[in-house]
C-alpha cells in the first residue's frame, strides 16, 4: 500500500510502477441490442414527480411481508403521531351523515327488511324463533325487573349513557347466549365462532377531498415553494375509536351481499363532503394510527360476523337536534362501526389505506338499547379514499340499514307485551348467515412464509418488532414531551423579533419542526460496554428494525 501511495509524493514514480495485471478493455456484447431500447419517458413536472414518490411509498408498504410491520410503516412519517380526525362511536354531532358517508365512502340504503340474501334462511329462522321466543321474553323481563345491578360509572362519559349501555350489555349477553345455545346443533359455524365482550375496535385511514385547514393555507401562503400550488390537496388522517357491546367472529368470511362485479355500479352514489371537519364538530388529536379489530394479528378467527352496539349516546344528544337527526346519528354510528371494524380486519389481511382490497368483506351490525333494535349489513369494497384516488376510485362501500324497530311493546306485570317476532327473526337470520370459504387468495399482499411477526425466525428482530408494535398501538404518551413554544416566545421571538441579541437555541429558532420528525429519528438503546460481545465490539447502539419506507 505504501508503495502505491508514494506516487503522490513523487509524481514521476507512477510511471515506473509496472502494471503487470492490466489488460485492454474488452467490449461487452450484452450491452448491445438489435433494436434500441430506451428507458420509459417520465413526466418530469413537479406534481407528477410527487405522485411517483407517493406511489412508490404505497408500493413499498404493499411489499412489506408482515401485518405489524405494515402498521409501523403507516406511522413512520410521524414521531409524535398523526394529527387525526377522531370519529368516536359515541359522539356524533348534529348533521354528521354527509361527513361520515364521505369519510367512509359509503352508500347508504334504508330498507324495511333485510337484503335479499337473507331470504334463504327464513324457514330455519321461523323454527328457531318459535323455540326461543319464551326464553327471550323471560330474559327481557328478568334483566329489566328481576335483577338490580350496580354499575360503576366513570366521570368522563355522561352517566345516563353509561347506565343505558351497561343495561343493554346485559340484555344483549343473555339474548346472544340463548340464540347461540339454540343454534349450536343446527348450524356448524356457530360452534366454531368466538364471542368477544367489549372489544377494542380502532381503524385508521387517510381521506382526500377535504378542504385545507386555514392554518395550512396560511402557512403555504408564506412559502415560496408553494407559490403555484397553494390549493394542492392534502390527505387527512382519520381514526375511528369504538367499543361494541359484543362481537362474534369466525375463521371464515361472510358471503358478499352484492357480487363484486356490481360494486362499480354508478347508482351507488356517495355525497361529497369537502368542508373542514371542524365545522361539523369533529376535532383532531395527535396519535399513532391504529388498526385493531378486537384481537391481535395471528388470531385464528379473524373475520367478523356480527357486532352489537349500544345507543346510549342518543340520550345525551340535545333535544333541539330532533328525532330525524337522532335516526341519522344511529345510521352514522352503524356506518362508522362497520367500516372501522372491517377496515381493521382488512388490515390484518395485509391491505391498508394505500393498498386496495381485492375482494369484498362483509359484516352485520345491530344497534340496540334492549328494546329498540336496528339492523345494518355492510359490505366493504374499497379502503382507498386518499386524495389521489378519492375522485377516480369507482368502487364504493355499501350499507343496508333498517329503522329502529321495537323488540317488544312494554313490560307489564312481569311479562313482555307485544313481542315483535319479525325483529327477533331478523336477529336470528343474522346469526344464521353462514360464513364460507372463498376460492381466491385472501392475503395477496402478505409474505408467503412470514405473514405476522411471530413467523419471523430472527429472535432479535421478532422481539424488537413485537414490543415496538405493541408500544405504538398503545398510544401511551411519549416519555419526552413535544417541544413547546411558550406564549412569551410566540409574542416576543416569533411574531416580533424583540430579543434578537439572544442566542438561538430553541427548535423553532433552528428551523426544526418537531411534527415533521420521523418515527426512527431517535437514538437506539445504548449497549453498555460490559454487555458488548467479547472480545472487542465497537457497536454502541442496538439494532432497530423499522420497515424501510
Amino acid at each position: 500500500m505504501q508503495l502505491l501511495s508514494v506516487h503522490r509524493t513523487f509524481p514521476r514514480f507512477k510511471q515506473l510502477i509496472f502494471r503487470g495485471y492490466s489488460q485492454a478493455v474488452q467490449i461487452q456484447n450484452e450491452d448491445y441490442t438489435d433494436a434500441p431500447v430506451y428507458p420509459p419517458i417520465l413526466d418530469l413536472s413537479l406534481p407528477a414527480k410527487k405522485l411517483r414518490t407517493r406511489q412508490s411509498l404505497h408500493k413499498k408498504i404493499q411489499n412489506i411481508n408482515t401485518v405489524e410491520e405494515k402498521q409501523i410503516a403507516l406511522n413512520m412519517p410521524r414521531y409524535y403521531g398523526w394529527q387525526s380526525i377522531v370519529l368516536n362511536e359515541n359522539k356524533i354531532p348534529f348533521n354528521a351523515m354527509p361527513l361520515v358517508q364521505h369519510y367512509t365512502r359509503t352508500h347508504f340504503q334504508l330498507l324495511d327488511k333485510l337484503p335479499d340474501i337473507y331470504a334463504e334462511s327464513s324457514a330455519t329462522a321461523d323454527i328457531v324463533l318459535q323455540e326461543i321466543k319464551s326464553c327471550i321474553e323471560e330474559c327481557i323481563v328478568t334483566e329489566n325487573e328481576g335483577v338490580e345491578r350496580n354499575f360503576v360509572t366513570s366521570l368522563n362519559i355522561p352517566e345516563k349513557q353509561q347506565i343505558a349501555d351497561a343495561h343493554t350489555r346485559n340484555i344483549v349477553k343473555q339474548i346472544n347466549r340463548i340464540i347461540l345455545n339454540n343454534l349450536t346443533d343446527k348450524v356448524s359455524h356457530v360452534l366454531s365462532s368466538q364471542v368477544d365482550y367489549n372489544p377494542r375496535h380502532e381503524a385508521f385511514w387517510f381521506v382526500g377531498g377535504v378542504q385545507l385547514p386555514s392554518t395550512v393555507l396560511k402557512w403555504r401562503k408564506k412559502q415560496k415553494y408553494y407559490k403555484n400550488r397553494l390549493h394542492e390537496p392534502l390527505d387527512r388522517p382519520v381514526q375511528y375509536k369504538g367499543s361494541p357491546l359484543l362481537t362474534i367472529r369466525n375463521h371464515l368470511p361472510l358471503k358478499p351481499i352484492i357480487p363484486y362485479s356490481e360494486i362499480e355500479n354508478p347508482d351507488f352514489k356517495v355525497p361529497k363532503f369537502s368542508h373542514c371537519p371542524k365545522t361539523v364538530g369533529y376535532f383532531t388529536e395527535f396519535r399513532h394510527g391504529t388498526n385493531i379489530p378486537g384481537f391481535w394479528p395471528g388470531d385464528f378467527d379473524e373475520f367478523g360476523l356480527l357486532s352489537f352496539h349500544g345507543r346510549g349516546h342518543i340520550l345525551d344528544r340535545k333535544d333541539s337536534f330532533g328525532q330525524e337527526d337522532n335516526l341519522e346519528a344511529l345510521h352514522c354510528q352503524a356506518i362508522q362501526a362497520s367500516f372501522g371494524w372491517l377496515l381493521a380486519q382488512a388490515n390484518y389481511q395485509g391491505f391498508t389505506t394505500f393498498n386496495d382490497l381485492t375482494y369484498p368483506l362483509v359484516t352485520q351490525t345491530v344497534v340496540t338499547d334492549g328494546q329498540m333494535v336496528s339492523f345494518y349489513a355492510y359490505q366493504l369494497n374499497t379502503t382507498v379514499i386518499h386524495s389521489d384516488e378519492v375522485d377516480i376510485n369507482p368502487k364504493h362501500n355499501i350499507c343496508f340499514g333498517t329503522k329502529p324497530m321495537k323488540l317488544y311493546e312494554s313490560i307489564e306485570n312481569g311479562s313482555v307485551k307485544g313481542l315483535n317476532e319479525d325483529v327477533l327473526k331478523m336477529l336470528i337470520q343474522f346469526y344464521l348467515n353462514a360464513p364460507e370459504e372463498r376460492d381466491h387468495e385472501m392475503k395477496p399482499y402478505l409474505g408467503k412464509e412470514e405473514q405476522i411477526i411471530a413467523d419471523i425466525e430472527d429472535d432479535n428482530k421478532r422481539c424488537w418488532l413485537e414490543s415496538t408494535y405493541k408500544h405504538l398501538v398503545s398510544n401511551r404518551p411519549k416519555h419526552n414531551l413535544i417541544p413547546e413554544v411558550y406564549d412569551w416566545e410566540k409574542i416576543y421571538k416569533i411574531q416580533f423579533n424583540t430579543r434578537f441579541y439572544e442566542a438561538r437555541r430553541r427548535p423553532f429558532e433552528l428551523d426544526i419542526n418537531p411534527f415533521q420528525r420521523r418515527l426512527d429519528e431517535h437514538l437506539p438503546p445504548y449497549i453498555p460496554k460490559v454487555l458488548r460481545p467479547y472480545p472487542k465490539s465497537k457497536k454502541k447502539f442496538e439494532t432497530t428494525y423499522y420497515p424501510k419506507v
Partner: protein
Amino acid sequence: MSTRWYPLYQRGNPQLRVFLPNFWMKLVRSSVNQLPNVVQFHCSMEMTKHDIKNYLEKIYNIPVVEVKTRIAMGKFRKDVGKGYIVKDDDIKFAYVTLPKTMKFEFPNIFEKKKGDTEDDMKSLDEAKKSFKGFIQRNKDRSDVPSWFTI
C-alpha cells in the same frame, strides 16, 4: 343595550330589574367555509351558550339547533410611535347552527343598484364639462387663482 354596569345589589336597596343587559351580537362573515346552515357571530364576552340561544330565539325568532362558542385571542401589534407591543381585546365567537333545511347567506351590504354606475358617470361628465367651461372662461388670465372670479 346599555353600556354601563348596574350597581351591585345591596340589602335594603330597591330591587334592580335588569331590562337592558350588556348583551350584543354582531353578525360576521365566516372566516372558514362554513356549512350553509351555520351562522357566525361576535358576541359579548359575558354571554353563555344559553344566553345566545335565548337572544336569537326570543328576540329574533330564529330557530336555533345548537350553539358553539370559542374565545379567540386578540391580535398582538406594535404600538405606532411607541414601539412596545400591545394586545387587542379577545373576541368571543358564536357558531349558531340552524335547522338543516335553512340556508344562510351573508347579505351584501354595500350592494350597487342597477342605475348606480350610470348616475356616477353622469355626474362625472357634468363635473368635467363645468371644469372645461371654467378653463375656457379664464384662458387669458391663467395666473389668477380660481376664487378670484365672479
